[in-house]
């Protein structure tokens, strides 16, 4: 078993038009910029992208949107220091938005990975974000039924990885990455360092390899926040 791939292009090659793609990260931390940019190079259209945000500046997810790859965003907070790309498309009616409370987004993704088709949450009860959703009462309190969220692909960023797909994450760059690894039918991880088998202590593995299909090393990965502060534009 060896899940290592030699190139980013190979890693994103299965992603075609109309795919649903989860992309890890919260703002710039944990965003798999190199995988995203390789996907832009490949250029599939009509993607549905699931991420907490909707891109910042002109790199990463913002660049995907700017380059016309994205038909729909599922996110909790499509705002950033420079949200122009998404905003303009959204206000022009050129991109669809499914707005999901952040905890519900996380739980729906986790449910997708865990085989739980639906669950109840107090979040959003009585608000417009729960309109049209089934509700139920348990022990005198009201809850909204939410459905799992799965994706054809998950693109994530990790710190260490091995050939079986075991992963660790760097500080708060963990965020959505482990649960998206679970919910993607085909999960690709870019890792800062590929280590030999046993290079991650079994007790310190955060994402067990069973959730990961491909691993590609990007030892000089860029941080989205840093790119944006430099005014970078992709491509």
């Amino acid at each position, binding site marked *: 078993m060896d899940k290592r791939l030699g190139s980013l292009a190979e890693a994103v090659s299965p992603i075609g038009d109309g795919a649903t793609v989860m992309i890890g990260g*919260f*703002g*710039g*931390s*944990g965003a798999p910029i190199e995988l995203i940019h390789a996907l832009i190079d490949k250029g599939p259209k009509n993607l549905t992208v699931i991420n*907490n945000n909707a891109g910042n500046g002109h790199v990463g997810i913002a660049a995907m949107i700017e380059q016309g790859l994205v038909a729909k965003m599922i996110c*909790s*907070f*499509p*705002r*950033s*220091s420079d*949200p122009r790309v*998404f*905003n303009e498309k*959204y*206000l022009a009616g050129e991109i669809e*938005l499914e*707005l*999901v*409370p*952040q*905890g*519900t*987004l*996380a*739980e729906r*993704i*986790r449910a997708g990975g865990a085989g739980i088709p639906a669950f109840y*949450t*107090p*979040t*959003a*009860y*009585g*608000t*417009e*974000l729960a309109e049209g959703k089934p509700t139920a009462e348990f022990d005198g309190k*009201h809850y909204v039924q939410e459905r799992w969220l799965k994706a054809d692909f998950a693109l994530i960023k990790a710190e260490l990885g091995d050939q079986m797909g075991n992963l660790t*994450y*760097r*500080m*708060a*760059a*963990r*965020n*959505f*990455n*482990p*649960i998206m690894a679970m919910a993607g039918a085909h999960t690709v991880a870019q890792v800062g360092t590929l280590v030999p088998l046993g290079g991650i202590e079994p007790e310190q593995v*955060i994402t067990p390899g069973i959730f990961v299909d491909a691993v590609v090393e990007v030892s000089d990965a860029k*941080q*989205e*926040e*840093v790119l944006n502060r430099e005014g970078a534009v992709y491509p």
Partner: protein
Amino acid sequence: MSETLEKHKLSNAQIAWRAAQDIEDGAYVNLGIGFPEMVAKFQPENRQAVFHTENGVLGFGKAPKEGEEDWDLINAGKKAITLNPGAAFFHHADSFSMIRGGHLDVAILGAFQVAQNGDLANWSTGKGVPAVGGAMDLVNGAKRVCVLTDHVTKNGEPKLVDRCTMPLTGVGCVTRVYSSLAVIDVEGGRFVLREKVAGLSVDDLRAVTGGELATDGEVIDIAVPDL
């Protein structure tokens, strides 16, 4: 009236300071993006609160110096943070398990409107690109949900209202409001005045408060330092 209000109202720092005095030692606290973040600065000495941020950190500390930021170590507002000893990282589903599961003692948020039944509107003006973040989870999960806010809008309209007219964040969720003029509990479907700025009477406050502003025992003057 608006001049009187301006003269007596607390600064944002003073509101944050007042809120900080109610956070007990050992409390787990989530501070909303922006103004509520100031609460952390005013923790009383000899008390240690542990701050939670939605993106998966418990026990973060002050902002780093400029130039020393690590952009993988940020809070929910995407600002750089540092860690205190005993900090922990975890993924987003675990982070919101802490919130939704009732493990946070206090969430402190801003508000557009708070209604006397505890309804909160703080996420959408109904215009532009909507964005919600973690607010709806926080108001339904934390044991105490506190709001920091100016008592009235820039146009002088009450922000404490009979009934929210803006899109709701949560239903019946707010437990206490720290406004620029008062400390008010939400209890039994009404506002209950606990503290007020010294220069205003209860009736002055009623004039700028929507809904019922009740009293229940003594109303004391808010004691805050100059900030």
